[in-house]
């Protein structure tokens, strides 16, 4: 066991998978000598060399498009997109190709690809460095989407993603890259994709969240007074609706928390599913505490945009009082 930050846990997972499997390579902007702008690939270039840790031209469609070719040829590329705000130029290659190649070719061609992307706000970064676009890719069939909220989960889920035979988007909440440490086994291990984690148990209300918002939820819960079950989805597609259903059938009330804008955010899907599956158990409408339907403001106001413990606590109280 080692006491690691999220960055360190991901770095360790990358090293172990590269040691284990010659087919794994890393590519992207500044991933080489520089070790990535967040230092997630620190030391990898030195250890594995130019061939397996590749600085590419500044072109996100190129990074993903060539990764698709690499993957179809049987390698296991791990491209990095430097910030979620720069996924845009790669959207087409992800959604028109990575997501479709298996079904388009009825399985003759597959795309075992893991795209790593720092995501979310809260670090006082410039514009387009603080967004939460996960919903777009959850909506796109053919991709798996992961967003861990802890070092332990990050390592196990990333290893599973790399070994997964299909394209996976691995969002890394940059706000908690170094926010805390956790005991992480030094050996390699995998965590199943599509399984949620019950962070804490309770029977008065369920909270569903993912990514760095999970930390905000914990803070709200720690204010005390209520027995709350917190579910960290971890994998956003396929998502663990069974865990949510079981919890809400027990508690009868639910609050969903995410950073992305409200309208058509993933929270809407969870809420709609809860209604479909738990209609007769619900004692109050499912509430969503989310980013607003605005552009994430520049950083002077970013904390007003992001759901925080105050807003979550308020939603809990309101939901309980309904």
């Amino acid at each position, binding site marked *: 066991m080692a006491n690691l930050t999220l960055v360190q846990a991901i770095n360790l997972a990358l090293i172990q998978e590269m040691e284990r499997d010659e087919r794994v390579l890393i590519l992207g902007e500044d991933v080489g000598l520089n070790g990535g702008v967040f230092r997630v690939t620190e030391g990898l270039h030195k250890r594995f060399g130019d061939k397996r840790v590749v600085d590419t031209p500044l*072109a996100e469609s190129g990074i993903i498009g*060539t990764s*698709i070719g690499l993957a179809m040829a049987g*390698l296991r590329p791990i491209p990095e997109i430097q910030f979620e705000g720069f996924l845009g*130029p790669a959207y*087409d290659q992800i959604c028109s*190709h990575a997501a479709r190649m298996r079904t388009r070719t*009825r399985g003759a061609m597959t795309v075992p690809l893991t795209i790593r992307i720092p995501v979310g706000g809260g670090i006082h970064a410039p514009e387009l460095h603080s967004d939460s676009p996960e919903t777009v890719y959850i909506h796109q069939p*053919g991709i798996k989407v992961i967003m861990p909220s802890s070092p332990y989960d990050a390592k196990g889920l990333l290893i599973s993603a790399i070994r*997964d035979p299909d394209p996976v988007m691995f969002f890394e909440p940059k706000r908690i890259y170094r926010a805390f440490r956790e005991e992480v086994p030094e050996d390699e291990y995998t965590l199943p994709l599509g399984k949620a984690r019950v962070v804490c148990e309770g029977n008065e209300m369920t909270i569903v969240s993912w990514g760095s918002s999970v930390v905000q939820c914990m803070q709200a819960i720690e204010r005390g007074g209520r027995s709350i079950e917190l579910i960290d989805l971890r994998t956003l597609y396929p998502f663990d609706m069974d865990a949510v259903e079981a919890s809400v059938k027990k508690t009868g009330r639910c609050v969903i928390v995410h950073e992305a804008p409200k309208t058509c955010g993933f929270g809407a899907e969870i809420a709609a599913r809860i209604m479909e599956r738990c209609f007769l158990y619900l004692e109050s409408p499912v509430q969503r505490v989310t980013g607003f339907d605005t552009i994430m403001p520049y950083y002077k106001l970013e904390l007003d945009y992001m759901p925080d413990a105050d807003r979550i606590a308020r939603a809990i109280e309101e939901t309980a009082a309904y």
Partner: protein
Amino acid sequence: MPIKSAFTTTIDHVSILDVNANFDEKLGAGLIPDGDLVRLYEHMCVCRHLDEVAFKLQRSGRMGTFPQNMGQEAASMGAAYALDKTDWLVPCYRENAGLFWRGLPMEMILLHWMGDERGNAIPRELYCMPLAIPIGTQLLHATGLAWAAKYRGEKRLACTFFGDGATSEGDFHEAMNFAANLDIPVIFFCQNNFWAISVPGKIQCSAPTIAQRAVAYGMDTIQCDGNDIFSVVYCVRKAAALAREKGRPFFIEAVTYRLGDHTTADDARRYRDQAEVDAWKTRDPILRIRKFLTTRGLWDDAKEAALAERAQRDVAAAVERAESIPPPDRNDFFNNMYATIPPDLALQRDTMQTHGIGQDPSQIEGAVIELPAKTSH
């Protein structure tokens, strides 16, 4: 010296068997053995016949939109001929000739345009990618495939095909740039047929040549008569040698012409002059090669008649195979989304419903709902 030259370059144009069927012995001799040339000619004619048949299938409602390859057969076939059987072919949708030469069964192309994904389930050993619908995107896949070969120390290269229109897309640029700067052995093969649906070539590239696109990347580049299979073979051999020996990419502009409509959904008379089309008909790659073969005593009317008959037979058989395949299973489009179908998707498949109640009818009080079975179509 306040003004000095920072860069100079020049680009070659290659033509071996010209429009008048004049043959340049110096470059052309020995390039393609007689027997191969005859086989290439035969394949081109079969491919041309498929175009005609496909057109009729579409008009009679037996197939969806189909893009004819007519007039461009020499380009992709010459390339496929000049490459190794294990080099990747990464096509757009106007390379039937080359794909058939490689060994792709004709019915797979038909199936694709009949709206059936099984037309894309190409056996791995053919090293062909399926047709690419979104313009320009496949160039990056080719670059990745070739990169993988380099990564593994294989001598395999990738050759990707695209039109003049594709050279306007951002992905074209990114693929060229990746290949040039990271030393990836890809051949970028542009079929410049002067039109992108109704948009004339000058709107895609107002420079004197498309070949000079490659200058931007410091990439070797050449222009050739794409209706002359000898020129094509000459250029692709040159490109392949560079790719295999130096691991470097190469750009080829093959000048050709789309003799038919863009697709069966198009009517080219709306936007281009018949005179232009007529002029290009005299440069038809099939006519040219036939004349050459005839002059050399390698071809005659009897052989032509026999070939016509064989083409009809082969294409009819391919159509028969494409049409007699059982309808696809509805489950197919669920089962091929992931290696292992997620439980929620399996539920959608098994119930053919997305609505919560339909997926779990136990929620409904009272009798099971009876509705007319899904209208068949």
